[in-house]
């Protein structure tokens, strides 16, 4: 009998490779071979057969070194990178009786609409998530327009509300992003990502490169939003401290494979895989 609360997202064998692959790939790449690129055909197996489920309001951390496949996995969840195999089942949290939908089988228009309406993403580099020529309010408004908001007054009111919620000075709603600090730009990205009240928020190394005190404020903000709005989140980080603060479940990736998955405290206190033990022992 399964007692788990119903899932929002079920990732089933998600796979992404760059290259055609060859019959020798399977026996040549992965954690056991310490590489993700096939030495015979040069295909990069960025993410292989990733599977997990996510319940409403859960925060899942993804850790691993550079090149482990965590950002590729996140891009597939964001529907901005195609998958070569697998399924991405989504069940609308507002309507648990609705049948699950495989997001990878949607047509291009429906996929884009889903991304605009139900997904939010915060990138490590603000220039990837923001249009630097638009004002801060314009960046939030753009996300709302994509989600089919049409009333200008309502859009501006929502943008101001989100700035207030993310601790940004509302009087600077018409200022351009380059005039904001790094920590503030991350908050602008968070405001934009939350604009359409997404069912899933994706966070890609959101505090990398920020000063410690700024990092703490951004993490506190994410914690508060998660707490107040029960947003389901997937958080990619190479910093175990960040994962410990925010995620209650964690998966560990290496050379494109999930090598360990578990409760975050278990991953940190009783890591099973040799790579996870190395990762935990390397934490500052």
């Amino acid at each position: 009998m399964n007692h788990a609360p119903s899932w929002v997202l079920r990732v089933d064998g998600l796979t992404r490779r760059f290259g055609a692959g060859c019959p020798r790939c399977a026996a040549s790449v992965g954690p056991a071979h310490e590489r993700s690129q096939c030495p015979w055909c040069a295909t990069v197996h960025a993410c292989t057969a990733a599977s997990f489920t996510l319940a409403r309001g859960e925060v899942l951390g993804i850790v691993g070194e550079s090149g482990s496949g965590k950002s590729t996995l996140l891009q597939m969840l964001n529907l901005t990178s195609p998958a070569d195999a697998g399924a991405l089942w989504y069940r609308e949290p507002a309507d648990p009786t609705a049948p699950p939908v495989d997001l990878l089988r949607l047509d291009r228009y429906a996929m884009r609409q889903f991304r605009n309406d139900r997904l939010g993403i915060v990138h490590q580099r603000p220039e990837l998530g923001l249009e630097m020529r638009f004002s801060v309010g314009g960046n939030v408004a753009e996300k709302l327009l994509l989600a089919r908001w049409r009333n200008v007054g309502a859009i501006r009111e929502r943008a101001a509300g989100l700035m207030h919620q993310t601790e940004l000075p509302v009087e600077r709603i018409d200022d351009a992003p380059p005039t904001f600090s790094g920590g503030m730009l991350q908050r602008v990205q968070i405001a934009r990502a939350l604009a359409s009240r997404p069912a899933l928020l994706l966070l890609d190394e959101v505090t990398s490169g920020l000063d410690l005190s700024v990092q703490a404020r951004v993490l506190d903000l994410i914690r508060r939003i998660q707490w107040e709005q029960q947003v389901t989140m997937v958080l990619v980080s190479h910093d175990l401290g960040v994962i410990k603060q925010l995620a209650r479940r964690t998966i560990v990736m290496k050379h494109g494979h999930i090598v360990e998955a578990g409760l975050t405290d278990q991953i940190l206190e009783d890591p099973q895989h040799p790579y996870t033990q190395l990762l935990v022992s390397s934490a500052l």
Partner: protein
Amino acid sequence: MSQPILKVSGLTKTFVLHLIDGRSITPVADLAFDVWPAQHFLISGRSGIGKTSILKCIYRSYLASAGEIWFDSLLAGPIELIHADESTILRVREREIGYCAQFLRVLPRIAALDILAEPLMRQGATRQAARDEAAAWLQRLGIAEPLWHASPVTFSGGEQQRINLGRAFIAAPRLLLLDEPTASLDGASRQVVVQLIDDARRRGITVLTVSHDLDTLLPSADARLHLA
């Protein structure tokens, strides 16, 4: 009282240290015991004998290597904690199984009042109601009011331990796991711990304690397992 709230059988925990030549350590081997509702069950034994490992296997901070741990959950029915899925464990932790570690670990910018309020808010209490109850608990634990809005990282060892205990007891889980709850406490504070355990049991809470402080805790225990 028809069945144990916790039934442990064949519990074994082996740590495989991959970074030290794959060496293995087995602090817990083939352990079995039952804990009944509203009981205070005490596990004693010298330091390093595996007491904390037992609690962490029950809480699933450690993955047991073998055996079964059955918990009689009101939310989900009988659950085998070693193999239950993670979402179920998280739900059970929120409502039914509490764990008080030997040392307090908190973010250095959260006030004592909010640390105690958080478990209640997780259970659905409003912020104000949770903070009111947290304040009552801080008073009961003898934490001076000027400290309520400060982070406990600046507190003395004894004060930190009382915050640690308060956070565990305030949530009123059905099963409370206490790891050396009287460590770093003076005589009067140790007696407060005994009172907290007695009060909890009167409210139907089952308490499983590991400790070597038998002078303080043995008189309030209904059952004891001594590891040698």
